[in-house]
């Protein structure tokens, strides 16, 4: 929940002392500028009387990735310690490095508006709302409307998924346990706990991804797309890490290849993995926003050094190293 003065986020008339208040990133996304045009010299107002949009608040021109307790999802300059979802700055390097969110980059040159494994969208991906990930994604919802009120309300436990603000990271209906520093410290003793399920739950993080990438998810894609058991057709998600063979060697929770939990609020030791119980998810391999690697992967899958390229795969597939 955001606290502090209302004017930190809102403006009544979008003017202060005759000067426009609303700001945005400049055209090169290198810094902030007052959001004016020759047509609107008094400034372009934002929905919800906001002084900027999602990206405007969650962007930093500095190197830190948490600023005033605000998680930075886009850095305009070199930064340290990216957060759990990564940093959208990478998608500016390569379309394949991240989700192509409007405000930050154009639509994917190769994929267009069609998410892999899914059907074409009618508009480019946004942060929230109908075409976004966060908030209420009901048709017609803009970013702001989708998140309306979420920042004002209690957003800590219980995360029960009943409301946007009590959903994991404002992902409506999704469960999980939020790390207080968004995994900035990147340690397996303190990290997000993601909800996974092997029984058709609609509260899992992978189910959420499948809303767009349907065919890649075990029960959303179904038997014809993913299969029901080995041999799978596509790499399954929302299935338990097998408790036999090579998988039993994955014991210590890896921040490179994290696993979801069936009950993220009651994990006895966050630093450990329990094969047979813990669950493979989309975010086991991918960052949610962007990474410095191909297909938003959590490791350099296309490294010219083979061992590096396979280093993520080998966390679970321990006999393939």
């Amino acid at each position, binding site marked *: 929940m955001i606290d502090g003065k209302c004017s930190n986020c809102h403006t009544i008339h979008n003017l202060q002392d005759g000067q426009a208040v609303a700001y945005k990133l400049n055209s090169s996304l290198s810094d902030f500028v007052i959001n004016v045009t020759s047509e609107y010299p008094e400034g372009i107002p934002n929905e919800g009387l906001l002084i900027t949009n999602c990206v405007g608040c969650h962007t930093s021109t500095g190197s830190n990735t948490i600023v005033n307790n605000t998680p930075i999802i886009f850095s305009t300059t070199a930064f340290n310690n990216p957060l759990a979802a990564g940093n959208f700055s990478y998608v500016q390097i390569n379309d*394949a490095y991240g989700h192509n969110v409007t405000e930050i980059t154009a639509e994917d040159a190769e994929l267009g508006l069609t998410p892999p494994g899914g059907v074409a969208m009618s508009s480019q991906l946004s942060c929230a709302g109908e075409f976004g990930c966060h908030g209420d994604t009901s048709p017609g919802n803009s970013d702001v409307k989708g998140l309306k009120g979420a920042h004002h309300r209690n957003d800590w436990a219980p995360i029960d998924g009943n409301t946007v603000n009590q959903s994991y990271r404002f992902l409506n209906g999704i469960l999980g346990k939020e790390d207080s520093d968004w995994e900035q410290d990147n340690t397996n003793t303190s990290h997000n706990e993601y909800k996974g399920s092997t029984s058709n739950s609609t509260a899992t993080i992978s189910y959420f991804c499948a809303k767009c990438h349907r065919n890649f998810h075990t029960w959303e894609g179904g038997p014809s797309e993913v299969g029901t058991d080995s041999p*799978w*057709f596509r790499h399954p998600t929302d299935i338990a890490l097998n408790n036999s063979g090579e998988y039993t*060697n994955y014991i210590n929770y890896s921040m490179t290849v994290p696993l979801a939990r069936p009950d993220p609020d009651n994990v006895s030791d966050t630093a450990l993995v329990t094969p047979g119980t813990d669950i493979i998810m989309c975010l086991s391999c991918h960052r949610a926003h962007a990474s410095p690697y191909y297909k938003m992967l959590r490791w350099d899958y*296309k490294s*010219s050094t083979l061992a590096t390229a396979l280093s993520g795969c080998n966390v679970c597939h321990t*006999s393939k190293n």
Partner: protein
Amino acid sequence: MNCNDIRNIINSMLYALCSLLLLLVAGNADGGTYLDSAHGDSTSGVNRSAVTGMPYPDTSSYPTGHCGHCHEQHTSIGGTEPSPVGDAQNSYSLFKENLGTDTNELCYACHETFSFGPGLGYGRQGIYQGKTKFNNSIHFLDSKMSWSPDPVPPGPPYNDTGNCHNCHNPHGYNDGSGLVPNILFARDSKTGDSPAYEMGCEACHDGTQAGILKDIKTQLNKTYAHPTHTYSDRHTLPETGQSESGSSFGPANRHAECVDCHNPHALGSLGDIHTAPGNAVSDVIKNVWGVEPTWPTIWTQPILFTVRKPSAYPDGAQYEYQICFKCHSYYGLGSVTDGVSSITGPSGISITDQAWEFNNNNKSVHPVVVSLNNQTGSTTPKPLTSAQMSSPWNSGTGNNTMYCSDCHGADDESSGAKGPHGSTRKFLLKGNAQYWPTKSDGSTLWKLSDYSIFSSNGLFCINCHPIYDGTWKNNVHSVGMGMASPHQDLTCVTCHVAVPHGSKRSRLIGYGTTDPSPYNYAGNSLKVTGFRKASGPNSYVGLPATSTSNNCATAGTSGCHGSSITSPEP
């Protein structure tokens, strides 16, 4: 700190140590050798982008050996289904289906396209010889060709007849002794294994999956067997022989692994041994490499060989003997004296050079290489008569050829696995009669006077040669029968060589004065000193002893035939 504290500490340490050991064992069991395997090699491993003629999007930037060259995790690369375009998602996220009606199509995508040296589609050593041969082999066609229920070694988690994965683990497999070569699930026996076990083949060929008639493991564990279970770590590729300045099969490296005689990828469609007569490679030994000697002068050692390997010889050996000669000739043995090597075989007898024995310029041979009518060194009459042969050899006499495995095989071929893998009989002698040159007691030599028990007591020769079936088939054998005459008490090896593959003289006659053991049984059995082939089986003349027209000379014995005959064979 009290006693309980100390006990708890010790227990904790023991628990930690046990846990560590369990982890190490688990690590071994699960391998972790992909990057060391042929497919995972960062230089020569899998690389889909190198497959010609098919569009495989966006994989050229994967390093060689990368998972993505076979698996595409979402079966979607850059939003595009893997080629061939329009193909559905495949098992294991493979870019081509590899199971069911598409068995091995993924494997073939590379292994039919790449040339590893011996020819397009051939593996580096020419053992894998392409899709067409494999798909026509019993190892592809037989419904039993899927992984057996045996949990060790761990096969693929599915049954797919004819799938490469039934024998190969494409990721490599660590069996606790390191990476199993050739991306196989299992290796041949290792030093110290007891019992020895060719796991790769005998996982099925042990009387379980392949059935009792293909139970090779039992055969190889018999007393007289090819040294498959005997040695370890001697089979290294490529194998070369003495004529190539190699010593893969030399005295210090004797071995006989399954693939030295069989090509598991290119067996025939029936997977059976031959039907006599003939000597062309049979189904079970098709597409195995072999050697063809260049024949030197009579009774000398062939030292020049044509190595019949791909790519010069895409099908390898043409005749069975060419496979046997890899080990049983100069090619494997190196130089020998008088045809006899210094290596003692399982039957306790020195191994001989069989290319030497079957030399086309020798006076007499069993027709393993060519028919007797084509035996250059033989003199007329070259073959025996039809009456001297049993079926099927009594038809087309002189024009037939035979296999080494017509004589050598298992003692129980009527009920067990066929072939010269192992036997309870010396020299792997097979058939209804299995003893030579001694009777079943191993010491009493056969005599002509044993004619009434030739069959019942198992004189080996009787399988093909009806020496006596109420009448004698030549007048030498019949001499003195029923009378107090020397011939009925003569042992077979008094006149014939004890290794009856071939001889410097006609009719497999040996000379006691020149022939060494084992041709001369125990070094002293041969009594003939001169021999000249007669015009027919009943035309032999031996008396009077003073006649130089006799066909035999036996100086130094009783003098029955005298010591001097006209034009004896040298």
